[in-house]
């Protein structure tokens, strides 16, 4: 019985090695006006198994601002807004985005309000009571992404082997990324250049 278990373990470990993951890294080549962007990878093969475990991402409400104002999540994740104000201030979180519209009602000091985001896209949200409270959530198709405050080097880790497309959501509406096709194999993919160009 012990021998059998040992062989099962060996088989399991060899399967794990077959779907080993690698990192993809490189540089964003971008014009000067471009600031925040999200680099992300999308699988081209339906057979690629993705890490799709749901996460809850936190956004704080403090000093009548959202922290951070820009959040990136994967489709299927939840966002939780915590009212971390130092005094009794109510906030209402709502969005009229065509992708996901919601009204989470009123949340007082210490409250936590949640919303699930099922589909990829961009959602703008607001507090209806406070005029400077505006935030943006970028929902990516999966968990293989990196949010950059400005163009520079990027690194996406743990991509399963297979064919992928590397792309970016560029917040400056005048620009877009030129997607790159790539194959993830047994070694890390390095020195890629993702170009940001005018639409």
């Amino acid at each position, binding site marked *: 019985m012990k021998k059998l278990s040992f062989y099962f373990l060996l088989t399991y470990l060899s399967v794990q090695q077959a779907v080993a993951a690698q990192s993809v890294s490189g540089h964003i080549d971008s014009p000067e006006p471009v600031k925040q962007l999200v680099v992300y990878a999308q699988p081209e093969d339906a057979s690629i198994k993705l890490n799709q475990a749901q996460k809850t991402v936190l956004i704080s409400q403090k000093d009548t601002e959202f922290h951070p104002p820009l959040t990136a999540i994967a489709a299927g994740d939840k966002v939780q807004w915590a009212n971390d104000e130092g005094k009794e201030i109510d906030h*209402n979180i709502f969005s009229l985005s065509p992708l996901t519209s919601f*009204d989470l009602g*009123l949340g007082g000091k210490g409250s936590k309000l949640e919303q699930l985001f099922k589909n990829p896209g*961009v959602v703008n949200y607001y507090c209806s009571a*406070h005029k400077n409270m505006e935030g943006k959530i970028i929902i990516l198709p999966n968990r293989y992404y990196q949010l950059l405050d400005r163009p520079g080097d990027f690194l996406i880790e743990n991509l399963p082997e297979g064919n992928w497309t590397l792309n970016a959501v560029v917040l400056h509406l005048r620009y877009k990324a030129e997607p790159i096709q790539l194959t993830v194999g047994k070694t890390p993919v390095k020195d890629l250049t993702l170009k940001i160009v005018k639409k």
Partner: protein
Amino acid sequence: MKYLLLLVVLMLNACVDAPKVIKGKGAVYGMLSADSHPLFNWKAEHDSGSSIYGETKQGGIKYQDNMVNYAKLDELYVGLVQANLPPQLHHLTATADGMSQKSIALATGDSIQIHNNTGRSQNFFVANPGSDSDIQTFPSLVAGATANYKIDLEGDLELLSEDNDALKTLLLSKKNMLAKRLSSGDSYQFDNLDPGNYQLIFWYWRLGKIQQAVQIQAEENIRVDKVLTVDSVIRH
């Protein structure tokens, strides 16, 4: 408090005059306003008086400087979609701090006249945030110059500058829409309309829009009042 509000509403209602009846024509008119979230209003009315809602029992919500004062909003729009409208011209001034208006509702094909008071050249463009391909670029506008830009795109758009993030005006562009800018609580009217079916659009950039179909009959005035709130727009 409730009776005071009721009285105010009744007084405002009395101020909305119906258009004159024109033979063979009809009209639509009413009042457009915006209001806080209903839960906020409820809490304002029932709060004990120790917080930001404290003065509500003495008559009205006490708005802090950082709050949205819905009673004083002045960029509400009502639009009527009808055929054969001549193109309109809308005006904006760009300064280094931002645009003179947060929003403009217009008909696709209307023009926006921009005066560049930023002290630097600006490259304005219009984009649909939901589409990579919907983008319209304009010739560069040097400092101190004024130019007219025709808007060809339709939808919920953003007028932006390539050179300054602070320069942003949201556009609601709809074919054949005649739009009127109102302050909260203002009355509006579209008269001298041929009988038929029309679409009314009520919009505030932060609260979104409500669309409503209206059927105009000859020698008939239809009254449509609307209050834009977060919940009314989302549940619409």
